[in-house]
């Protein structure tokens, strides 16, 4: 796609299989007793959460609630940037108090986004447990954050970027590594 593309790490089938496996892992850990809700981090995390929810429905016959979380207001780098980042809306139309929340994001990198997402969730209610599902873990953590469910472990160098392209946004399903 881009001239900077270095390698494709997941194709359409691989991506789908990863999500299926994550869905099974979530269901297995819940053991049928837990009340799972999925909260995707905007923007592509939400799409992935929707897809995982659909797969869980296929397994369990009940669809878990899916919410969308915008973490802009919780970022730790506001005021360091030349312009304010765009604020999108948070739509979590169900209570999260006392429930198991699985945060879903596309790429886990420094961990700061997840830190912000956890603070946001706490302001919205008090979950019983927060777990983390990511499609790609590319390493280089700056905070002590670890995912519970991983689609693919992908060691990268700092100079590289990982792009998750999804049909709903980009017309295709693939994950690629790009050089800066």
């Amino acid at each position, binding site marked *: 796609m881009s001239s900077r593309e270095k390698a494709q790490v997941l194709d359409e089938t691989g991506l789908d299989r990863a999500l299926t496996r994550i869905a099974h892992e979530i269901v297995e850990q819940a053991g049928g007793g837990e009340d799972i809700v999925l909260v995707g981090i905007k923007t592509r995390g939400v799409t992935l959460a929707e897809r995982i929810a659909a797969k869980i429905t296929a397994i369990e016959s009940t669809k878990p609630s899916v919410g969308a979380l*915008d973490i802009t*207001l*919780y970022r730790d780098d*506001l*005021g*360091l*940037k*030349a*312009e*304010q*980042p*765009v*604020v*999108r*809306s*948070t*739509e979590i139309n169900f209570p999260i108090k006392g429930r198991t929340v699985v945060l879903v994001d596309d790429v886990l990198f420094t961990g700061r986004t997840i830190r912000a997402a956890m*603070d*946001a969730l706490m*302001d*919205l*209610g008090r979950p019983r447990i927060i777990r983390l599902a990511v499609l790609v873990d590319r390493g280089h953590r700056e905070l002590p954050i670890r995912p519970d469910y991983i689609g693919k472990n992908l060691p990268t160098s700092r100079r590289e970027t990982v792009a998750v392209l999804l049909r709903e946004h980009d017309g295709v399903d693939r994950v690629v590594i790009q050089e800066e």
Partner: protein
Amino acid sequence: MAWKRKDLLGMQELEAAEITDVLDTAASMKEIATREIKKVPTLRGKTVVNLFYESSTRTRTSFEIAGKWLSADVINFSASGSSAEKGESLLDTARNIEAMSPDVVVVRHKASGAPALLARHLRCGVVNAGDGAHEHPTQALLDLLTIREKKGHLEGLNVTIVGDVTHSRVARSDIFGMRKMGITVTVAGPPTLIPAQCQELGVKVSHRLEEAIAHADVIMMLRLQHERMEGGFIPSIREYSRVWGLSLAKLERCRPDVLIMHPGPVNRGVELAPEVADSPYSVILDQVTNGVAVRMAVLYLLAGSKGA
């Protein structure tokens, strides 16, 4: 983000993209009001000073709530009982406040141009909360947000502003802002309350209420101040309310989906019959809710960035 300004002084200098930025940000932030814990850490450690030379409980409270929900420290400075009464000039007051390192100063003043004066002299961002008869940009922004929410879009709508346009900063800001977003604006009122060469602002001018509101999608009623009788602008409040006040009967000849708006506070029985103010056509309370959201968005855009 199109927004790069240090200050928000008026609608006149804004571009449509910047207005859209504010509206979109405000719309996203509305949800904070519905939470149990109405707080986000975004402006934690930032100081917002409300410098209000004209008394105004509602606008000041709106800015205060907006700042506090964003975790900012909000300080209120009202002119009465302060050094302003002892004769301290506006600039001296501002410089004194600046020495305390605020991040944003929100100012309301009876002199047109006062916020511009402050913005020139202060390092921090300045928000105009109303200067004389000149501009009240956050009011226009919340009006636009309310209309966009209810109608789904802004371009192509017909808005009629009724009342004392000459003395109204809300009218000016609405006119400037609405025109940028593609709204056709009509102003209506007695000739004594319509300013010189008003049509050159790009609005239609009407001196007959019924004709002016017949096709309006939105009717914005302006507040009539009682002092206007003294300047010879109107003969009496009674006559004004009979000719220019909005009653249910007059409303019946308007579009069935018309919105009634008012910047507040409403003079019940003067601009609006009480039944109209409380009718389903009225979105006056939505305006107030949206006021907090818009002010949160403005504080976010001005206080956070190091831009401009």
